[in-house]
């Protein structure tokens, strides 16, 4: 079945440093979504990418969707302590009529002040 892997599993940065997490799918995706989950919380939707090669920005966050629609990345510039949490990518496969999301393994980010 479809698998979505993320690297790294965990990253600890100092406040102000940059952070990137990478997401790779075993199958071509129709779209990819990114979620953030704070400790003890539930996943919160951040963004959805649909087009091949698409790049979207949200303040300090930059999201990319690969040309082959099998990989994606999330880059955070100048991290803040409020960025702490686990970041998940979640993909929907081509030809899927209904919204089954396959979540990645997640990258846990810790930011020290």
């Amino acid at each position, binding site marked *: 079945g479809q698998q979505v892997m993320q690297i790294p599993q965990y990253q600890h940065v100092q406040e102000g440093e940059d952070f990137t997490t990478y997401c790779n799918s075993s199958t071509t995706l*129709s779209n990819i979504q990114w979620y953030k989950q704070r400790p003890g919380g539930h996943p919160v939707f951040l963004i959805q990418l649909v087009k091949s090669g698409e790049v979207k920005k949200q303040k300090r966050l930059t999201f990319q969707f690969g040309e082959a629609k099998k990989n994606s990345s999330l880059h955070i510039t100048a991290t803040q302590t409020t960025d702490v949490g686990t970041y998940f990518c979640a993909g929907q496969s081509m030809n899927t009529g209904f*919204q089954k999301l396959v*979540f990645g393994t997640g990258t846990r980010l810790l930011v020290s002040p």
Partner: protein
Amino acid sequence: DAGVTQSPTHLIKTRGQQVTLRCSPKSGHDTVSWYQQALGQGPQFIFQYYEEEERQRGNFPDRFSGHQFPNYSSELNVNALLLGDSALYLCASSLRRTGRDQPQHFGDGTRLSIL
């Protein structure tokens, strides 16, 4: 505008028992999906309901079943509970539009512990 609500928030059961978890979707949403999230892992898709029918199912045994009601709310039932069923169970709702995938909104989850 209420978001996705789930009940109960916490639940403790013993092996072999049965459990029912409940979910009310965000106002205006018509599709409900259920996920199981074990500690330290990403959510795993259980199944999705639309128009009161199960539309997709993940790799979960028949012990996991569900239902969607005419008001779009949903229940997740798990029979013959195993220790491995201990997890956070998340409900997500969305609006289905033909030809356009809509983001899912998650509830706070039900934390199920099996003793």
